[in-house]
């Protein structure tokens, strides 16, 4: 396969002859630490969030191993509280929220728009360093005594517990601003740096999804910032607004917290939707069914997500009338979400489906997200939620969304754009096997949690009555399978960087602009500034021999 490629020997002098790309453009620590190139920043994010994911995954593994026995197999109850908190905080704030926008978004969004970079490159680097600072602070908080409040920092417990809540609060504040700056940058980039001819309705849906995400990041995250700041102030000088001893109202904290943290669910999931929209189209080689509907549904989800946060507070002493309203409004989220799911399925239907590994991850997403989404509708119903609130049913539901959907979409996207980012291709057979193992492991982990949750097993408990043991043990077996699958995935992805099996310029036959740039792209992305004349996802001009669209 490599015979017609002039120079693939990385060690020989011939490597000199290869065109410079963003990775080998310059070398040395400072050329990365001080880089303003969106692809390098994205790559640093990719490494960073992957490490965070593996840390969070390790904590998850510890939690599940502990729950093998009804009385807890590994830790004291206090340690268990810290470990599940670490799992939640690392996964939510350090992995899921920045994962897709920070890594794939940073690398792909400017390419898709035909831009040379994001609009504000220095802010982009600042955003990465804020993320890094937040991650370091969170790790520091572990050293400074840990934190056992759960990732939600509910008051009044978070005000009374004798742990490093201020440090982790500061970490969340800093991570919040990292997220805000990424979102802000993407909005400006999308508005101001589109290539000539790239109209709003020629933008790939990944861009639309990131745009909607960015609006949420900008409009919701500041409220989280002030909330964690207030919790820190409460601990430092006892303002009293969240502290019932001092006349405060813990439910007010929950309002503040969920005003951000419900939209945050969509900050996490909308980029995943964007990836899936791209991938179903490319790997089915078919224009997306309902392009505009998917684009608008992203915006609709973004807006509706601001109206439903109270569904997290159905058992918190909120007024019943507010609960009616929140429950009612929650159902509206299902409409744009279902529009997306149906559109993806309709796109695959009668498509020219190539079961490449990114497509396998995508199909796994479609199944898992259907379950995750529908159980969300169940939980949105007020009366049902009173029973299911704070049980493993909720845990299973949001893991179907956060792990099963978002992490899988992230994996799908990494597999899809891997050849574009590095110019190499991984072992496709291993990739398919890993995807299968992950799918089986994931469902084995969380289906038992749905069952025991519906039977009343409360979440976050270090111990449980023996009746639940079979479900917990099945779940623990599932997580081990999942871990094997992920380990395999990490192995072949990293190995591909050393094996250097050269990828095609346009590995999957995509027609969005990033596939027109050289592989891997050079510093300012395109040799010639692209001009867009085709409609989006128009595969009619794709030459299947060369996988190229005619150069315009």
């Amino acid at each position, binding site marked *: 396969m490599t015979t017609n490629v002039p120079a693939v020997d990385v060690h020989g002098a011939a490597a000199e002859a290869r065109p410079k790309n963003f990775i080998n453009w310059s070398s040395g620590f400072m050329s990365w630490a001080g880089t303003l190139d969106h692809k390098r920043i994205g790559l640093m994010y990719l490494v960073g969030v992957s490490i965070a994911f593996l840390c969070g995954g390790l904590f998850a593994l510890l939690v599940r191993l502990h729950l093998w026995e009804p009385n807890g197999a590994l830790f004291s109850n206090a340690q268990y509280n810290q470990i599940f908190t670490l799992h939640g905080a690392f996964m939510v704030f350090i992995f899921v929220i920045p994962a897709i926008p920070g890594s794939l978004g940073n690398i792909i969004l400017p390419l898709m728009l035909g*831009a*040379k*970079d994001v*609009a*504000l*490159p220095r*802010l982009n680097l600042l955003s990465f360093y804020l993320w890094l600072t937040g991650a370091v602070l969170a790790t520091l908080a572990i050293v400074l005594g840990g934190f056992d409040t759960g990732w939600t920092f509910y008051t009044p417990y978070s005000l009374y517990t004798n742990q490093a809540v201020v440090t982790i609060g500061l970490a969340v504040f800093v991570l919040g601003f990292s997220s*805000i700056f990424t979102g*802000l*940058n993407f*909005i*400006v980039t999308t*508005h*101001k*740096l589109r290539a000539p001819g790239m109209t709003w309705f020629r933008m790939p849906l990944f861009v639309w999804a990131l745009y909607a995400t960015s609006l949420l990041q*900008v*409009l*919701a*995250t*500041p*409220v989280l*910032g*002030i*909330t964690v700041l*207030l919790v820190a*102030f409460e601990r*430092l*000088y*006892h*303002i*009293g*607004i969240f502290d019932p*001893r*001092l*006349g*405060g*109202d813990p439910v*007010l904290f929950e309002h*503040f917290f969920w005003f951000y943290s419900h939209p945050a669910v969509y900050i996490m999931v909308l980029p995943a939707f964007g990836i899936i929209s791209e991938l179903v189209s490319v790997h089915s080689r078919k224009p997306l069914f309902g392009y505009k509907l998917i684009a608008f549904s992203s915006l609709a989800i973004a807006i509706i997500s601001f109206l439903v946060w109270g569904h997290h507070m159905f058992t918190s002493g909120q007024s019943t009338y507010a609960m009616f309203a929140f429950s009612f409004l929650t159902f509206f989220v299902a409409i744009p979400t279902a529009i997306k799911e149906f559109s993806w399925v309709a796109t695959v239907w009668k498509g020219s489906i190539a079961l490449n590994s990114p497509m396998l991850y995508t199909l796994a997403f479609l199944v898992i997200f259907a379950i995750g989404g529908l159980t969300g509708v169940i939980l949105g119903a007020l009366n049902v939620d009173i029973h299911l609130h704070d049980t493993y049913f909720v845990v299973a539901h949001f893991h179907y969304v956060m792990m099963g959907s978002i992490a899988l979409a992230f994996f799908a996207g990494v597999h899809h754009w891997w050849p574009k980012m590095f110019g190499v291709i991984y072992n496709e057979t291993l990739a398919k096997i890993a995807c299968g193992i992950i799918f089986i492991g994931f469902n084995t982990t969380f289906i038992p949690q749905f069952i025991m949750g519906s039977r009343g097993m409360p979440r976050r408990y270090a111990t449980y009555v023996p009746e639940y043991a079979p479900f917990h043990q099945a779940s623990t077996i599932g997580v081990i399978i999942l871990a094997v699958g992920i380990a395999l995935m990490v192995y072949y992805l990293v190995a591909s960087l050393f094996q250097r099996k050269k990828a095609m310029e346009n590995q999957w036959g995509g027609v969005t602009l990033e596939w027109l740039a050289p592989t891997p792209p050079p*510093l*300012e992305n395109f040799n010639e500034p692209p001009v867009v004349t085709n409609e989006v996802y128009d595969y009619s001009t794709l030459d299947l021999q060369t996988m190229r669209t005619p150069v315009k």
Partner: protein
Amino acid sequence: MSHDGHHSVVIPAPGPEFQAHTVAHHFDTPVQEFQSAKLGFWLFLATEILLFGGLFAAYFYFHEVYPETFRLGGQQLSWKLGALNTSVLLLSSWTMAMGVRCAQTSQKSKLLMYCGLTVLGAAIFMVIKFIEYKAKNDHGLVVFSELFSPYNEATGQLAWFKDYHNAMVDKAGVPLPHGHLFFAIYLTMTAIHGLHVVIGAGLILWVMKGAAKGRFHAGYYLPVDLVGLYWHLVDLIWIFLFPLLYLVP
């Protein structure tokens, strides 16, 4: 800042005392650069509104729950100092607006003068704020030296709220419920606002440094414009803080 021989766009200096501006390499035109930065900054200002918004929500919430505490708390603040500070900030907002105008019209020395006046306004504001805080400290309403002392669980007393003159009591002399809440919110809101004043003044000093070198003129005044917007936001928030805290409705 061209990487591979691409020609960069340069905005020429309007006169010998000014510097030319090179448009960043990833922008095609000066207008694109200007509008991108402006859009980004407005988005940032929107986040500031939402950040302060959480504090305002807390204010309104507890104003609703403890109206009498808030009414009496407001009376402990000096509305005269508050009104004076409002006027100082409004004036400084005006000098800043005039400063931006001078940048737009390439009037270097007047730009420096107006920026200097704005920083002076910020300084006066902070001095008055300090006088206010000192008075609260002396009345035991916010005892700064005890601010971070722990809460006494047994007595239910906050170390920083002593109320030496029994200001926060009802007509019968019974302490109002949670009298400290008003002062805690007052302190938090004005301290975060004050931090913005200090940051704003720092940014204006930075603008003055660039202005002295002649970086800003009719062709390129983006940083002056953005710092000006930030300063007006500081003013904007104070416009709401003043009646809510000093004249509690």
